[in-house]
């Protein structure tokens, strides 16, 4: 089960209203490589995992991603909580505003609502861990791209923290893949799927 902690993983304190930034940062809330998808990917993959290291790592990283989802939601909230109709129009935020006002809705920057098609749960140890490593890279690139576009130091500070977490997770998934495959037949690591073949 999950217990809520009434604090963020990392401080988010944004002084200036700026819907133009919220318009693309929302993608890490509900976009294809965002934090909602990350948490659901890992927390869903863990059920079929055969080894305790994999169950533990997917649980712990999946839980951390829920904390990142909360941080991104907080960024979007703080960028938009005091916006005026003039700021909305100037930022081109009308389309989001008319559907969600100043609420935080899981959608990609390109407009599609969050979709489970963006995550993979294959039920195979090597395939799922390889997916997770790719997912961390895609999230890292999304944060790189946000840093290229972001002109508010209060926001960039938080984005740099989240981006570094993707690198740590990539390393851990790589180590987990090694630990898992060391348990397999070294002459043919694809002989069976240990998540299914007992």
């Amino acid at each position, binding site marked *: 089960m999950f217990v*809520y902690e009434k604090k963020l993983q*990392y*401080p988010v304190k944004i002084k200036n209203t700026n819907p133009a930034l919220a318009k693309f940062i929302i993608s890490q809330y509900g976009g294809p490589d965002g934090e909602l998808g990350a948490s659901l990917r890992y927390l869903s993959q863990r059920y079929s995992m055969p080894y305790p*290291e994999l169950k533990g790592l997917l649980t712990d990283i999946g839980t951390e991603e829920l904390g990142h989802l909360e941080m991104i939601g907080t960024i979007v909230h703080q960028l938009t909580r005091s916006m005026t109709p003039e700021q909305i129009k100037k930022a081109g935020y009308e389309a989001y505003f008319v559907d969600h006002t100043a609420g935080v809705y899981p959608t990609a920057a390109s407009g599609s609502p969050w979709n489970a098609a963006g995550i993979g749960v294959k039920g195979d140890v090597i395939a799922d861990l390889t997916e997770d490593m790719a997912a961390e890279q895609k999230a890292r690139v999304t944060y790189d791209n946000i840093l290229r576009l972001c002109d508010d130091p209060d926001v960039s500070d938080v984005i*740099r923290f989240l981006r570094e977490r993707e690198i*740590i997770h990539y390393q*851990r998934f*790589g180590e*987990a893949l090694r630990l898992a495959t060391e348990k397999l037949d070294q002459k043919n690591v694809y002989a069976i799927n240990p998540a299914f073949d007992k």
Partner: protein
Amino acid sequence: MENMDMQTGCSYKQGVLPGCSPLALSQTPPQQSSEPAYKSGEALSRGTLFPGLDLPFKNIVNQMPAETTELRELMALDFVTSELGLYLDTHSGDTQAFGTFQSFLKLYDEGKKEYVARFGPICLSDLVSAKSYTWLKDPWPWDYSGETEG
């Protein structure tokens, strides 16, 4: 080179791959050690406890804030425990890292008790000896501003 591993000859920025590895499989060198490590406040700012894995975009890094807060201190201790937790998930036999992990758990536990006594609960269970139901007290985490943070 600093922090060179005597056995492998690799720096803390590097890992060791085995001499023979199966084909058709991606290989990530395992992190050799939980040392060197940043201090907790710097680890939080950097987004990692480990200098060896600290790989910033365009080499721009977060600066530590000039003034810290009780909440930030608590976040830093919590961050080190979860960072070491992920390390231990793939290095469960590292007794030195486990010892450090436990000492940070203790620091976090003590820090949390002090924080809760001054600012209110972090978890519902922190209300065990509270005088009233202070769970609802503002600010909630997304409401932070310069003035409201612990």
